[in-house]
């Protein structure tokens, strides 16, 4: 991997906004093979450009198979086995913003904070003989935050999609999910805990700390970082 490798989100608004950002710093993206192609070039940069899903980009940056990439901080924080030291955010990009939050049913008038959730979890386990279920796709982020907040009385349920519906369908009681306006949570009868914002995430231009930078890759990286 002597050539610099940069990954860009392959679809959706995140891709459009990343393209606009690259153009704004004077390095516009040119996709090869039209809109559906999965490779591209960045103007003025001798680099291999890959179009990948945001999750693959976060994983690649953490593993070191990519040098740079644009992806969501939520995914970086969740996929990093050792936390924030596993990647280096060079620039937060001001788009793709969303909060990763802990939400419980609004009807739980006795639960406003993580500490209340701990108490409710302990009582729940006593009366039901099982632990409260927490549905999420952010497994590591949830585990780390719950431990930090001293909440141990729960079980994780991995959610593939529509996490916010888990309490009403009965597959979980609490969720950890991403939200921008809170409208979806509200529509599903849920509320965010007072200290339930785990992370305020944005799209971020990120450098891998595990990828090796040869002299050649280093020079290209400096050109790009110098353009910010």
């Amino acid at each position: 991997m002597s050539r610099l490798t940069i990954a860009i989100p392959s679809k959706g608004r995140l891709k459009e906004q990343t393209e606009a950002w690259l153009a704004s710093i004077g390095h516009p993206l040119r996709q090869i093979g039209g809109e559906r192609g999965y490779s591209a070039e960045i103007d003025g940069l001798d680099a291999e450009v890959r179009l990948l899903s945001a999750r693959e980009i976060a994983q690649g940056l953490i593993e070191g198979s990519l040098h740079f990439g644009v992806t969501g901080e939520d995914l970086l924080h969740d996929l990093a086995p050792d936390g924030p030291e596993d990647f280096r955010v060079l620039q937060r990009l001001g788009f793709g913003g969303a909060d990763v939050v802990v939400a419980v049913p609004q009807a739980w008038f006795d639960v406003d904070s993580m500490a209340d959730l701990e108490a409710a979890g302990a009582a729940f386990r006593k009366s039901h003989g099982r632990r409260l279920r927490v549905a999420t796709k952010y497994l590591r982020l949830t585990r780390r935050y719950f431990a930090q907040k001293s909440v141990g009385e729960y079980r994780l349920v991995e959610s593939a999609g529509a996490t916010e519906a888990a309490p009403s369908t009965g597959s979980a009681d609490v969720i950890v999910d991403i939200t921008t306006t809170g409208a979806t949570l509200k529509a599903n009868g849920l509320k965010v805990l007072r200290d339930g914002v785990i992370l305020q995430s944005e799209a971020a231009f990120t450098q891998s700390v595990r990828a090796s930078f040869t002299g050649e890759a280093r020079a290209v990286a400096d050109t790009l970082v110098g353009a910010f």
Partner: protein
Amino acid sequence: MNHDALVAVARAVFEAAGGTPIDPDYVLPADIPLELSGEAVRARLCVFTDNRGAEMAMRPDLTLPVAQREAARLEAGPSAKTYTYAARAFRLPAAPDDPFEFTQVGLERFGYAAVPSADAELFALVHRAVEACGVSPKSIVTGDLAIFPAFIDALDLPSVTTDLLKRAFRQEGGVRAVLDAASRPLDTDVLAALDAPDAEVALGAVLTARVVPLVGARSLAEIIGGLRARRAAIEAGGLPDAARAALLALREVDCPLTDAPATLSALAKTYGLTGADAALGAFASRVEKILALVPGARRTAEFRAGFGRRFTYYDGFVFEVLAEGLAPTQPVAAGGRYDGLIAGLSGARVSATGIGGVVRPDRMVRVRRTGA
């Protein structure tokens, strides 16, 4: 001695103590460790999914599957039994030089009287197994998970505060957040519902008025229970300064085991906690018996009040034996008491005291190799 020779030596020590050899199931429903210990253990658990989608786990230690078998055996009626094993356990590595699988050689006793001499004898046996393997302990860390709860009970606080403090002690963070959160005020319409003749009907009406659906598995009665606990915590007015000072002082205790009984008694006396006398008496008796059986512990053993609070199913005496050349997170032997484990595994259908300990031949090989 190589690894297998160490296994044989340690096993002989435990078999001589009357343990019946056992090699229980390798694979457990993941529910067993996860429901018992919570998500905190998942980071170390080797989990996979069976063909129906159920989560299964490789046994993370031998205590769990042995206790599971013992719980099943006890359904036929109570009787005491001792087991020994030399068997593989599986954990996701926490450090780069941790193995995925390793052999534990150990002993478990179920259903015997939970007395100080039983703790001391088990400790002495594990210590003897380590020495028989040619390893001399560099240091021994001990704790007692019954001391903190005994101090909390002796503080004479409202039960809602007592329960909170006991749970907070076993969690990673501190007790302050837990106590502060409980004393935040509640909404007036919600509070009014609690005093209605039928609180469930009244709280149901609050939900309707606020257009809030009742989703999830918690019932109105459980929410009311939580609200009443919150109200009781508000009325109790948090943790008095003297109680807070007593618990902070206890948490700081870290001394040679020989000094621990006097240190703890002095603490209890300073804060007037006569209610902890029984627990402290048992503690002092255990220390005396340990030092009589293992004189070397006078030099090597220490006591830390907070030690073992994250060991999920342990609830009394706990210890770890450390050796030269290995990290503090890599004890060559460990053990302790778990009197609540059988009840926890059987949904309280049966119960029995439990105590056990293991040695790690794979780590002892490394100690011997470094020449210590």
